[in-house]
């Protein structure tokens, strides 16, 4: 189950500058674990205390995973996972 993961500029230090990488898994959590195996340090930027970091947006295809089960969101072969840091402030 291979998916393509788009990596935002700020996290490309973990992927050797690659804009997109491939990962395998059947849920977002498995995808993130697989990412961590190949690109150490990414998981800590995405997951905090067992949940997706509040200020990171993750989408499977066009859907915000926050409304699709978060880390348990299912992914299937050929899906596109996009990571975008929230643009926020005060």
């Amino acid at each position: 189950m291979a998916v393509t993961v788009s990596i935002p500029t700020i996290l490309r230090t973990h992927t050797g500058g690659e804009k997109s990488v491939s990962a395998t898994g059947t849920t977002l959590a498995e995808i993130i674990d697989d990412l961590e195996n190949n690109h150490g340090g990414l998981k800590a930027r995405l997951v905090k205390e067992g949940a997706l970091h509040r200020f990171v947006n993750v989408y499977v295809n066009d859907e915000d995973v926050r409304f699709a089960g978060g880390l348990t969101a299912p992914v299937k072969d050929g899906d596109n996972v996009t990571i975008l840091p929230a643009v926020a402030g005060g």
Partner: protein
Amino acid sequence: MLVIRRDLVDAMVAHARRDHPDEACGQIAGPEGSDRPERIIEMENAERSPTFYRFDAAEQLKVYREMQANDEEAVVIYHSHTATEAYPSRTDIKFANEPQAHYVLVSTRDPIEHELRSYRIVDGVVTEEPVKIIES
């Protein structure tokens, strides 16, 4: 230094005034690597708050895809402060994730005179920069 057309400055200020007293936010896209802001995109402040802003996540993805398809990037990321000066707050600094972007702040705390300033925010360090406005 941020070099920007007058009409884009006017559009940011008008957006900030319109959403006052809530914070307004948006971005100005330009050709990748050009450092030239060209296309303003007013974003929805999902927080609808006078003290906080956050791009609506669904809209952010849509605009991100558009910019990728056009070989654009966010040259300017702007938002307003409605009761304080146009200087990055602690939360602004914490969430600044785009080292290549000019962070523009517009203060609307004065009902007549706005304040507009630009910054680079890299690794938590704020550096103010001059703004050169080109008559358009």
